[in-house]
């Protein structure tokens, strides 16, 4: 393929990536025969840029048998995810992490600043049990006492919970609908206890203990306590999602306000533009026309990178931006290596294009070896295989992913793009000489 054709292909790629990375038109709608591509591309921002909360819960698995641990952690994660989804937060992320026997659940809630509510929603075990009340008559002057006898009717027997209102007081309450089996159990329990109270116990605390008037066969019940509307809503979410198989507690909490994130974004953009501008100018002053070719390559690098961030998608964080900026430096380095080589080879060869091809060939050895070493470190930091002894979340990983991506793209732009642009550029100059 001729350099001209390659440059045209590169130009087409550039236009496609530019289209994807532009903030205005961020969706693609292509109909080609049976293929219908419809995709919306948005830049995903991490919590430190978009604002939001990260909560880390530690699971107390001390009372769980070793062989059941993996299972209960998986269901813990699923239940927490269901709760967060039912709460109506867009694009939450719930991940498990393990380090030296400590099991953690990392929950990210974009746009949430009030973590107190989120903590109580996610962190409460919400173990619901119906219990019979066994009253013991006062004997020998002792006070009247009662003990609870838990039944086998629990939160697991619910098919649905919802917010309702107490018909008598108008206060918020939680309505329960049992499964078929649960309804039968409830009928049996209420049948056994007509005229006596049945306690509704949540996490070992009695929420209410209404007197049973008659056997209830409809398979529904209501918890009336002193709920606020929010409390009733959260409890119904917890009951719908299920009880946590193991208790959890918060060990880490980070909240970034939306304004601070916005500030970081606009400052990073300004810094990025100023920095890039200085690099572009420097390359022009240091290498003249060659430097301009490198600058074009750098712009193509930036556009392709941004497009890939949207396509993959990469969650962009502050350290991620740093990783990107560092990869810009390494992208320019490929060009500098080639140009310095070209300066040396220029006088040794008869034609400029010969000198150019040889410079590319020679520089490639060092570019390859150096970039593979950097990729190796980025790979260890990004930890794609989720090894527990390395960083499994957080800023280090975000940084490594953008760095690795940047190096890979810079190998493409530094070698293929600059090379073909230069081939075209050098050829034209030679033709002019021949005229």
């Amino acid at each position, binding site marked *: 393929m001729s350099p001209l054709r390659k440059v045209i292909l590169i130009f087409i790629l550039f236009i496609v990536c530019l289209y994807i990375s532009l903030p205005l038109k961020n969706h693609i709608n292509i109909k080609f025969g049976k293929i219908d591509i419809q995709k919306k591309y948005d830049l995903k921002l991490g919590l*430190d840029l978009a604002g939001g909360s990260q909560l*880390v819960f530690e699971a107390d698995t001390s009372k769980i048998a070793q062989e059941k641990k993996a299972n209960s952690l998986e269901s813990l994660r699923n239940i927490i995810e269901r709760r967060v989804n039912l709460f109506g937060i867009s694009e939450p992320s719930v991940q498990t992490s393990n380090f*030296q026997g*400590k099991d953690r659940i990392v929950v990210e809630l974009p746009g949430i*600043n009030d973590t107190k509510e989120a903590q109580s929603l996610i962190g409460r075990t919400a173990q619901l049990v119906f219990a019979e009340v066994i009253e013991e008559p006062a004997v020998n002057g002792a006070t009247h006492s009662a003990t609870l006898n838990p039944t086998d009717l629990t939160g697991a027997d619910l098919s649905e919970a919802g917010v309702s209102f107490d018909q008598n007081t108008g206060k918020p309450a939680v309505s329960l609908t049992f499964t078929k089996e649960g309804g039968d159990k409830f009928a049996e329990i209420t049948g056994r206890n007509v005229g006596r109270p049945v306690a509704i116990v949540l996490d070992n605390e009695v929420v209410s203990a209404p007197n049973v008037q008659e056997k209830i066969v409809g398979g529904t019940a209501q918890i009336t306590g002193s709920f606020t509307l929010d409390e009733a809503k959260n409890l119904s979410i917890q009951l719908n999602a299920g009880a946590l198989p193991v208790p959890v507690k*918060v*060990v*880490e*909490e*980070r*909240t*970034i*306000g939306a304004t*601070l994130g916005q*500030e*970081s974004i606009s*400052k*990073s953009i*300004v*810094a*990025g533009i*100023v*920095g890039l501008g*200085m*690099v572009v100018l*420097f*390359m022009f002053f*240091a290498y003249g026309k060659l430097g301009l070719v490198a600058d074009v390559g750098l712009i193509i690098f930036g556009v392709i990178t941004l497009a890939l961030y949207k396509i993959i998608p990469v969650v962009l964080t*502050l*350290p991620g*931006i*740093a*990783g990107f*900026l*560092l990869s*810009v*430096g*390494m992208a320019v*380095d490929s060009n*500098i*290596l080639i140009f*310095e080589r070209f300066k040396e080879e220029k006088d040794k060869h008869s034609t400029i294009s010969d000198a150019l091809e040889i410079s590319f060939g*020679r520089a490639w050895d*060092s570019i390859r*070896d*150096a*970039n593979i*070493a*950097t990729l*190796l*470190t*980025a790979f*260890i*930091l990004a930890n794609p295989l989720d090894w527990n*002894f*390395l*960083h499994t979340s957080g*800023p*280090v990983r975000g*940084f490594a992913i953008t760095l690795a991506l940047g190096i890979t793209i810079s190998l493409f732009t530094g070698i293929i793009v600059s090379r073909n642009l230069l081939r075209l550029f050098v050829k034209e100059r030679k033709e002019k000489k021949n005229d």
Partner: protein
Amino acid sequence: MIDWMKYRWLYLIISATVLLCGVLSLIKWGLKYGVDFTGGTLIEYKFSDGASETLKYPPMEDKDLEKIRLDFKNQGAQEARFENVGPSIGPELVKKTITAIIISAGGILLWVSLRFKSLKFGISAVLGMLHDSLILIGSFSLLGHFMGVEVDFLFVTALLTILSFSVHDTIVNYDRIREINKKYGGELYNVANEATSETMVRSLNNSFTIIFMLLALILLGGETIKWFAVALLMGTVSGTYSSPFVSVAILVTWDKLEKKFKKS
């Protein structure tokens, strides 16, 4: 041609002096750890008049913390950032980082030794890399003592970045040594001199481009990222210096000593 390697003892003495300052500071004052390491709470408040203040608290009971937050709320201050870290997070972070450094160093040692077909090259490259990390840690110990700069998650990221940058730069130098050696052969001392001369402009130009990006970040990038960028800048300067003047200098010294012992 400039006889760079003639002064190799001088470079090593300069490095040793800087390293010694850093290590002494580390022993005497240590590092100033942020909440990421110690556990505790960090709150950045924005007041209605636009001023902002960052406050740090040691680990405390939930209800005491709630009281502080409520007090500020009543004064009309808004929480721009709230970080509450349990005491178990820090040691875990340190362990994982050390593991990452050991694995990276091992991987790089293998890769460089393989590419340059000599363990000498690998070990010298890794020594240069450790030199840069230690200089960075030492500098932040001094910055912590005199300016109250804390080390946090981002510092750890910067440290790991510098590992890769340092090796990246060293390999470019090595590559030139390998090439000249293939073409003309001769004493490693002379080859290293030639290679250092030839790669000097490239090394400086490359560092300039990275330094420009980082300077822009330090001056314009905002408070959250400032010390992170400073750490990267220090690492870049140290990484550029260490490639010819630590890694290659050690390589040449090693080669000379080896020959001396073989003769005697």
